[in-house]
């Protein structure tokens, strides 16, 4: 373990506590239809318009596995560098609830489709590996709506039967920051693979968070509490912070922690007990007799492997090696597939270093300000590439480029046209510049004398004056050269 300043510890009196976190992430599989039926899965449809007889558990209805969802789960497993189990089993998890039409959820309990894997996190103080315990496929439940009527609960079954991947990490995470990095990395990998859109607002990605604390240096795990169904990274971090401190307080107070399931109240920023271990549901898991064990061949898996795109870790490595990017820049550019695609499109025809700086700097800031995703960028990769080439070949200065960029943000215009229309082309003709410079020196005789007598700081003044007179269009490099000679 690193002993650096980024280590997350909770201090009480003379004791230091380490926080141990494990996540069960529920990721909605990107697929047209549900895990065991042909109903559509579109988000935001009118209630109960995407429900088949199977989803509503009518008598005699039977589940039939959706092969596409199986492929998606295996692809995700490959992306997590995990063991793919050629034989997995669907079990029934039995419990009663109004939005669970079958009275059981079809899930995988003993034999999941994906076994152990790992995820690499890039933390400020280096890389960290987080173990994946397993990934299994399961059905989502419907949605109970309690606030439409004072007495009745309404049920929307559109989500009932939608395929989820439950991705269980090992208890390897140690801080809210690591949780943030883990979720983002997981999301990034799945978006690269196209297996989950990772949209947390729409509930495509949510997590149960297991938290325990232990005295620093201790090898034993503390008693854990599970915080159910947290649907944003910020809330996860807040919940962990609250929960870890609550547990430390209990220990410091000489009390014991009871294993239990807790809820995070986002309004009060606190976790509350939902049910204790003793009250835990007995789900009576058993293999679903309506479904045969799921068996996949080596060929099936190999075919899917050949469909796997370059993933963030590999892409980062390539960016560093091939384009000489710094690890920091590479990390930012590969964090999501759209950004990396954009970047690679820009550098097809333009300078890598300039492109990196312009994307990470100007473009990200501008998009951020307008609250846009990279896919919604008003500036296409092609036009950004043109802009960079205009800078590179000296047609415009970096400063002018910023003006052009601002105009491009208003609508995807060809930067060449903007430069032409507005006459922003850089003045690089030495003769013309000499004339300009002569005039500036002439107008400021006294300052020129001061400069010559040793006040070298005045050089900047002359550059500024030349730029001002030229309306910012003078080639700064040439201005420097000529000024030095003339002064």
């Amino acid at each position: 373990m690193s002993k650096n300043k980024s280590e997350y510890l909770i201090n009480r009196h003379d004791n230091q506590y380490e926080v141990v976190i494990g996540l069960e992430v529920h990721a909605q599989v990107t697929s047209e239809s549900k895990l065991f039926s042909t109903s559509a899965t579109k988000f935001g449809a009118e209630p109960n318009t995407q429900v088949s007889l199977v989803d509503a558990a009518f008598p005699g209805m039977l589940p039939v596995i959706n092969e596409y969802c199986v492929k998606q789960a295996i692809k995700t497993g490959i992306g997590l560098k995990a063991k793919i189990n050629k034989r997995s089993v669907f079990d029934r998890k039995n419990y009663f609830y109004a939005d669970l039409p079958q009275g059981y959820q079809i899930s995988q309990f003993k034999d999941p489709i994906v076994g152990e894997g790992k995820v690499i996190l890039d933390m400020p103080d280096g890389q960290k590996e987080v173990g994946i315990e397993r990934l299994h496929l399961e059905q989502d439940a419907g949605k109970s709506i309690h606030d439409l009527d004072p007495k009745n609960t309404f049920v929307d079954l559109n989500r009932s039967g939608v395929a989820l991947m439950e991705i269980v990490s090992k208890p390897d995470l140690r801080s809210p920051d690591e949780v943030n990095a883990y979720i983002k990395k997981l999301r990034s990998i799945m978006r690269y693979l196209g297996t989950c859109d990772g949209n947390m607002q729409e509930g495509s990605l949510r997590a149960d968070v297991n938290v325990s604390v232990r005295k620093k240096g201790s090898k034993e795990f503390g008693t854990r509490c599970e915080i159910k169904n947290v649907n944003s990274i910020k809330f996860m971090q807040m919940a962990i912070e609250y929960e870890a401190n609550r547990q430390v307080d209990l220990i410091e107070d000489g009390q014991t922690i009871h294993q239990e399931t807790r809820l995070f109240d986002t309004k009060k920023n606190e976790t509350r007990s939902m049910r204790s271990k003793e009250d835990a549901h007995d789900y009576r898991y058993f293999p679903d007799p309506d479904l045969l064990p799921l068996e996949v061949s080596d060929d099936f898996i190999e075919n899917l492997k050949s469909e796997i795109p370059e993933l963030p870790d590999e892409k980062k490595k390539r960016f560093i090696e091939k384009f000489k990017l710094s690890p920091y820049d590479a990390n930012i550019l590969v964090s999501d597939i759209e950004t990396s695609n954009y970047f690679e499109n820009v550098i097809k025809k333009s300078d890598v270093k300039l492109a990196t700086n312009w994307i990470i700097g100007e473009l990200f800031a501008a998009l951020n300000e307008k609250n846009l995703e990279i896919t919604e960028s008003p500036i296409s990769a092609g036009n950004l590439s043109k802009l960079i080439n205009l800078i590179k070949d000296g047609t415009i200065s970096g400063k002018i480029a910023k003006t052009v960029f601002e105009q491009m943000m208003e609508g995807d215009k060809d930067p060449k046209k903007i430069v032409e229309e507005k006459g922003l082309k850089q003045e690089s003709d030495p003769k013309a510049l000499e004339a300009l410079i002569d005039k500036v020196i002439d107008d400021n005789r006294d300052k020129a004398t001061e400069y010559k007598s040793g006040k070298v700081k005045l050089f900047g003044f002359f550059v500024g004056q030349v730029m001002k007179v030229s309306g910012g269009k003078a080639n700064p490099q040439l201005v420097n050269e000529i000024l030095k000679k003339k002064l």
Partner: protein
Amino acid sequence: MSDITKQSLSELVENIKSKKLSSSDVTKAFVERSEKSKELNTYITEDYANALNKAKKFDEKPNLDLKLPGIPMAVKDLFCTRDLRTTAGSKILNNFVPTYESTVTQNIWNEGAILMGKLNCDEFAMGSSNETSFFGNVQNPIDKNLVPGGSSGGSSSAVAAQLTPITIGTDTGGSIRQPASFTGTVGLKPTYGSCSRYGIVAFASSLDQAGPMAQNVRDCALLQEVISTYDEKDSTSIDFKRNEYSKELTKDIKGKKIGIPKEYRVDGMPKEIEDLWKKGIEYAKDCGAEIIDISLPHTNYALPTYYIVAPAEASSNLARYDGVKYGFRAEGENLIDMYEKTRSEGFGAEVQRRIMIGTYVLSSGYYDAYYLKAQKVRKLIKNDFDEAYKKVDAILTPSTPSSAFKIGEKTNDPVSMYLNDIFTVPVNLAGLPGISIPAGHDAKGYPLGLQIIGKAFDEQNILNIAYAMEEKINFKNNITDWWIK
């Protein structure tokens, strides 16, 4: 033709094809007889007017190439039928009208048959006497106040009383073969995976199989040919080459090796069952079969294994009947209260008993000792059969340990009721085909059946053996129409 209802399916098909009878003639005859037979309580839902209309339509444009041209029939009320109430014999589905059709019944209508109504059965097919039905007892046409067996008791009674020429039942632990045996009719439980379970109200998914019930082996073979299809909508449906069972039917079973399992000589088995079995062996020999003694060592464990596996699956399968989406709902103070009231009032005692057994054996701490152990024993039972089939082509046993009993005789003793399934249950656990054929009478004149068990997918072979033995046995059902005034 005055005695239409006395005709077998094969005769009716022939008469319709040769235009000696119309579908309307036949349908009218069975509807009339059904209407006169209300005392048997075989029907839960009658659909006579529709049936007569459909028959009329069929006659207007008869397609005589079909396998069941214009043949009327009633089916067990466990099969979902589009636009016709489907109750599974339960109050909880008392008002349930499916918008869809089970694959098995669809196959039947596709071959030209016409639905007359839905037949009584034990609630969710849980019972051996049809006494657990919310819709009341069914009378066995053999004698007043005699049970018709179960759970397909309405089906067996209807075929024996000639209210329908043929029917279909479902068999989870003997629910086709035992009632067939009790009523002097023929019933086939096909190989697991032969008939689609799509649209059949589930009892125990890994055991449930639909199958034909008829007056003779040939009719049974024809109906099996119609209902058995591979179905993508049922993940446990098996894609194997299905015979044209009725066309390939033969009485030539010379040299077939038939096994006699010594473990089926159970303690306390009535002498008349023992005698029937001996007679069966003689008939088989007469047909040219070779008799071989075999052992199925785990037979004793079949019944307890069944009464763990079946209730476990049932407890989960029946969770969907919760008053939320369809069927009966009792109002409650809150969700839990509504669940409790709905399920307490909606399910009968036997169903509740099995839900409780199933819930218990799946509970954490008991799962390994019961459910997991039962699955292991189930494998051993299947291995027994695999071993035996290295030496024989089929196995001959009695269908039931006794003849039909009186209504009410065993209702207070569930265990003695469960013992009814002792010879049929191992077949379901092993997923094999089994057929019960009538083979004699006991001292009271009640029918007794013999069971022929086959290898998986070998329905043709046991149908052939049954066909050959049927001729030798020459069984006559003694039905007096006592219920018709």
